[in-house]
């Protein structure tokens, strides 16, 4: 039992990162039907911005927080402007392909410019150390990541559920033409959605750096596939569903290999796909209801 609980605790860090990434992913998917494979690169951009501030220039941590947000939001908005805005309303496949193109372009230019080697990510001392509870251990940073994520999820849910902008987002996701005739400027709301979604990717990137202690140019590739699956599992556009699914995939993946024989540990990436295919067969609309809710 302790072994099981310990595995769950260890996986909370990765689960949190997935939850935040998936929440941001699902918002743009829900509002303009964008399967955004460039979300991983928005994520990577935030990680690099924070890396330069914290590791290269050794500036204070709060500047790293600002840097990851700024890096992701700027890249996110540039990609939106160049790759998505010109094909707005063109349908799922077109958007999917341009996002793939944007993803490849950004990732490979970064690899060319900085190479794809692992770079150590410096984070402050107060995030190091381990707490003990009975027989269980939790790393300080995992606890902090988890708490930060819960707080962010709460704020995001409040924003989507209760505020004017949130209601506007959800009405556009269902019927943008009708929303416009109520006076909602859908273009403006879409940009706001991109800013929020990118900022979430930036936070996830910072948490990734703290959790794993390193970043690299291709880090978005794995993350975005997981976020995409979490988004579909949670019901496209359902922010709460995406968060829960992020944790399900993160924690489930850890348990999956924890109970596999050691020589099969290489099968770890299989877990999300197993969940994905079972879901597509049994409940293709996702565990929770679709459309931004």
């Amino acid at each position: 039992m302790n072994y099981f609980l310990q595995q769950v605790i260890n996986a909370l860090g990765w689960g949190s990162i997935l939850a935040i990434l998936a929440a941001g992913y699902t918002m743009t998917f829900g509002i303009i039907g964008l399967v955004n494979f460039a979300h991983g690169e928005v994520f990577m951009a935030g990680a690099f911005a924070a890396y330069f501030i914290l590791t290269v220039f050794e500036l204070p941590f709060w500047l790293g927080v600002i840097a990851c947000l700024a890096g992701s939001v700027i890249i996110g908005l540039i990609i939106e402007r160049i790759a998505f805005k010109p094909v707005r309303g063109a349908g799922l496949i077109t958007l999917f392909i341009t996002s793939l193109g944007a993803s490849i372009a950004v990732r490979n230019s970064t690899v060319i410019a900085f190479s794809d080697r692992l770079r150590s990510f410096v984070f402050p001392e107060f995030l190091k150390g381990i707490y003990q509870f009975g027989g269980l251990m939790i790393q300080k940073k995992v606890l902090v990541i988890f708490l930060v994520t819960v707080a962010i999820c709460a704020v995001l849910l409040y924003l989507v559920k209760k505020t004017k902008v949130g209601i506007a987002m959800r009405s556009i996701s269902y019927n943008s033409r009708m929303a416009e005739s109520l006076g909602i400027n859908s273009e403006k709301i879409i940009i706001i959605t991109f800013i929020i979604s990118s900022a979430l990717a930036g936070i996830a990137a910072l948490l990734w750096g703290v959790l794993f202690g390193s970043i690299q140019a291709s880090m978005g590739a794995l993350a975005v596939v997981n976020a995409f699956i979490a988004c579909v599992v949670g019901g496209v556009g359902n922010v709460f569903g995406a968060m829960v699914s992020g944790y399900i995939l993160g924690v489930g993946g850890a348990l999956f290999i924890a109970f596999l024989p050691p020589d099969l540990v290489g099968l770890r990436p299989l877990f999300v796909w197993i969940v994905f295919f079972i879901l597509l067969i049994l409940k293709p609309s996702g565990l929770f209801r679709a459309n931004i809710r």
Partner: protein
Amino acid sequence: MSTVPLLELKGVVAGYGKMDVINDISIRVNQGEVVTLLGSNGVGKSTTLRTILAQTDLKKGEIKYNGENVTNFPTYRIAALGISYCPEGREIFSNLTTKENLQAGAYLLKSREELEKNLDRVYSLFPILKERSNQIAESLSGGEQEMLAIGRSLMSSPNLMLLDEPSLGLAPQLVELIGTTLREINKAGVSILLIEQNAKLALEISNYGYLMRKGTIVLEGKAKDLVTDERVKEIYLGIVKV
């Protein structure tokens, strides 16, 4: 008359893509009036409303609101002028609750108090919506959804309402209720441009009417004169002229 009409369409030609649906349409709605567009299915009534909302391709003509040329305004700015829209088929946001649908309708309002005031007003017009306020809108019945669509278009404190077939597919007592409600809304000072397949209802509550055929206006006049007009009867009452 020297007064500036609230809404004026002058020689409007519009449609979808290359296809023109309405041709040379001129309509006036004066402040405080209920004006109705009559005509059988497919003559371009809905297209006329959608053209006012900038949701069609306008080829020629002018749209003026309070004397201001608003022809090339995007949809959301048309709404910001004080024009609200209740589309055919309701188009409520099924993914939102009843209350959230009404809040979406109040998007343009600046103050919280006004939102609450309008919410109370809609709930007093349609008490059933208050009971359903936290229910997901797709679970409402057809009649409730129509009330919600009308309620939503009232939430922005509009000056002019564009209503497309509000009584379509509703039970007779509901049609009655919608009619009374529209009269009440109008009495509160809101002008209405109405499309309604129920010509009797439409002409009862209207001041003025236009009859459309094949994308153009073939007849216009005071509602009380139109009631007795043979061409109007022909379309709506199924009376075939011998």
